[in-house]
């Protein structure tokens, strides 16, 4: 009997300590593929060392707004790492999959890294594009995605708008006219950042691409630094891509702990290094200093300062009938 008990105990312990394989789904936006490929490997090693469990993270990428809608429609993301807070707010408001105060769950409003919008120009900058006002000059062809569908495009639009507000002493009418002239120079609107990069870099269209900073660096890496240059304007916007655990999904999958750790680890030294190496600006000051050469200094305005937060910016500029709809005329 004692032997049987011991054997049973041994079996119980053996099965009890058996490593588990945990699966996570990270629903993200277009340009983060490379970042999370590297980060997922690092986190899996970290989690294995810490708990003995294997964690396999699947990635889903697309336009930020579209990805948010997919989660609302039932895509069972454990975590979302999207381009802007408004999209996660939409998941919270429409599907109630995570609390309204999701942004308070992690440091820095749940934005472990930041980015900005820069100009990718053809090698040698033949059109001498240095600042936002160069984009509105007649004959300049600007490539940027559609802000109605792309998170990065919304940041780009707001960066240009912020420049115009500063330039015209916050005269909103002049700022709108500036934006109208800028989008008059846009020959084609892609639905996402990756598509716009294809338009500019592969299809050879346009003089300048308004791109995420990391996407611009990736284009240099992928297509060759002998073909393009990055121009960082003196002023741009502080883009803060947020992350959040999709609480209800994670709870249902039993992955709340690992999903939370997955996002928390983005703030670790290793997570911040990976972000910096992929040309996202790290929050950690030490890591930021270490990779300072990767990032040109510029004046960064915030959406809260210039536009009163995402909800306000969305309603004013990107909602149906908003400023963008008013100023944009599709090219004939």
């Amino acid at each position, binding site marked *: 009997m004692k032997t049987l008990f011991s054997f049973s105990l041994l079996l119980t312990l053996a099965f009890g300590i058996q490593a588990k394989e945990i699966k996570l789904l990270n629903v993200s936006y277009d340009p983060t593929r490379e970042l999370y490929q590297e980060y997922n490997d690092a986190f899996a090693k970290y989690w294995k060392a810490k708990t003995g469990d294997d964690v396999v993270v699947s990635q889903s990428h697309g336009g930020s707004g579209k990805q948010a809608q997919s989660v609302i429609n*039932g895509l069972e993301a454990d975590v979302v790492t999207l381009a802007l807070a408004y999209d996660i707010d939409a998941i919270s408001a429409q599907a109630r999959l995570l609390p309204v105060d999701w942004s308070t769950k992690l440091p820095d409003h749940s934005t472990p890294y930041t980015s900005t919008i820069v100009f990718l120009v053809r090698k040698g900058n033949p059109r001498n594009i240095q600042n936002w006002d160069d984009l509105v000059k007649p004959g300049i*062809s600007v490539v940027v995605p559609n802000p109605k569908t792309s998170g990065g495009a919304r940041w780009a639009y707001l960066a240009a708008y912020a420049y115009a507000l500063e330039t015209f002493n916050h005269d909103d009418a002049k700022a709108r006219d500036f934006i109208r002239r800028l989008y008059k120079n846009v*020959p*084609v*609107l*892609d*639905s996402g950042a990756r*598509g716009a990069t294809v*338009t500019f870099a592969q*299809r*050879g*269209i*346009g003089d300048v691409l308004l791109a995420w900073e990391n996407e611009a660096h990736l284009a240099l890496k992928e297509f060759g630094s002998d073909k393009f240059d990055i121009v960082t304007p003196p002023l741009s916007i502080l883009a803060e891509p947020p992350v959040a655990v999709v609480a209800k999904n994670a709870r249902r999958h039993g992955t709340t702990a690992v999903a939370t750790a997955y996002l928390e680890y983005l703030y670790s030294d290793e997570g911040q290094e990976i972000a910096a190496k992929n040309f996202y600006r790290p929050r950690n000051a030490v890591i930021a200093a270490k990779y300072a050469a990767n990032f040109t200094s510029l004046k960064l305005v915030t959406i809260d300062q210039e536009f009163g937060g995402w909800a306000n910016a969305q309603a004013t500029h990107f909602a149906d009938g908003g400023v963008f709809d008013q100023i944009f005329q599709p*090219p004939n």
Partner: protein
Amino acid sequence: MSTVPTKLKQLAIATVAGLQFTLPAVAADTSTTPSDNGSGSSASQAAEIEALKQEVQVLAQKVDALEHQQQAPQPAPAAASPAIADLDQKVRILERQREIDQEDATAQAKTRPKISLSQNGFTISSADTNFVANFHGVLQVDSRSFFGNTAIPSGTSGFLLRRARPIFSGTVFQDYDFNFTPEFGGSTVQILDAYLNYHYDPAFQIQAGKFKSPVGLEQLQADVNTSFNERALPSYLLPYRDVGVELHGDLDGGVFSYAAGIFNGSPDYNNTTVNSALSNGKAFVGRVFAQPFKSTSVIPLQGLGVGTGGSYEHDDALASELTPGYVTDGQEKFFSYASTATAAGTHWRISPQGYYYYGPFGLLGEYAISDQKVAGGTVTKGSAIGLENTAWEISGGWVLTGEDAGYNGVTPLHPFDLRNGDWGALQLVARYADLDVDHKAFTDGFANPNTSASEARAWAVGLNWYLNRNFRINTSFSHTDFTGGHGTGATVTARPEDVLFTRIQLGF
């Protein structure tokens, strides 16, 4: 554009070079020519050399001019280059815009609802098919012609709208099915089916609402697929539609299926259904069915299915829980309980069943026992007597045009179309059935032996013409004879029933 100056330059250089080589040779030749005649000749040679030198200088100047011309900006090409570049950009933009439009169209097609109209009805579904709405229906227009002595009561010959059912069904959120089927046929309008089904896993589904109680094989067969206009006698001992909830599923692709549920309870043969409970008693109903060779390579046995269904319930002392009567193929009542009789206690049924289909041949058989405690008259509830009524049937068919027969009907290989000379499918069917009422029903005073038969035996033959998957015309002849029930001579059981049926059916 630059090829002309280049060629001119090459020509000039070649000419100059040629002269430079040629002139010394000419000079040498002239100095050694035997025919030369002194100073006059030297003067003319000098003049010739001078002339040639001048020509060389002219040519050199032309070469310089050409070289200069080539190095200088070309007005025409300089003007054309931006225009070409601009044109190139426009072409690229148009091509890219076309790509984007195609991507958008593809993306929109993926999310666009799908609409279809087919033999399965009118269907609208979301692009991911998680949401489906389907409208279909059944319409059966029958005729019944009773034969025999008109002095003896019989059924009424004539046309009737046997079934007229619009069916609304569909799925929401991928896993939740619904069905709503009103019945406008017959003389009353009723809700026939109204249920919800959760089907996350085919092997584990939960269905709740009003639907067919899972017992009888022929009863569970779709109305559009039965071989004859009316089901055979065993179906009248088994529950019909009822309100309840059941767990059901198909395992291994339908090799094994099961259903188990709890329902309000249903009397034997009750063509008019109700939407609420008749009493506090509840019926526990279940059925298992296996097609053991369905997925094997033993083709002759793939269409073999066997199973059994049953129910158990406890009835209160209510007359409404007794059958309103058993009927013939012509839907004439040949047995009914006395008005004083009540259901009083347990009521169980069991029905072994099976079918076999192989090519155009089909066979379906079913046996049913309905055992019910009955009280009334001098029999109190406490001493209620169990009456065991039994029935069985065997029916077979042969599709003359060669199509496969099946539990789910016949699909014509060549739907009726006079333009192509196609006639659809023809099926010959035959059936024999028997229903035997427990003799205690008569000996203990629960039924009147003068007006109710104790046994009915029916045979029928018919011809089914499947014009296509949706449209069917059939005719059949049914003969039923009885044991007992003709004491007064003025009942339907006084002589055999002979009926000719026809039907025009649309089922989609």
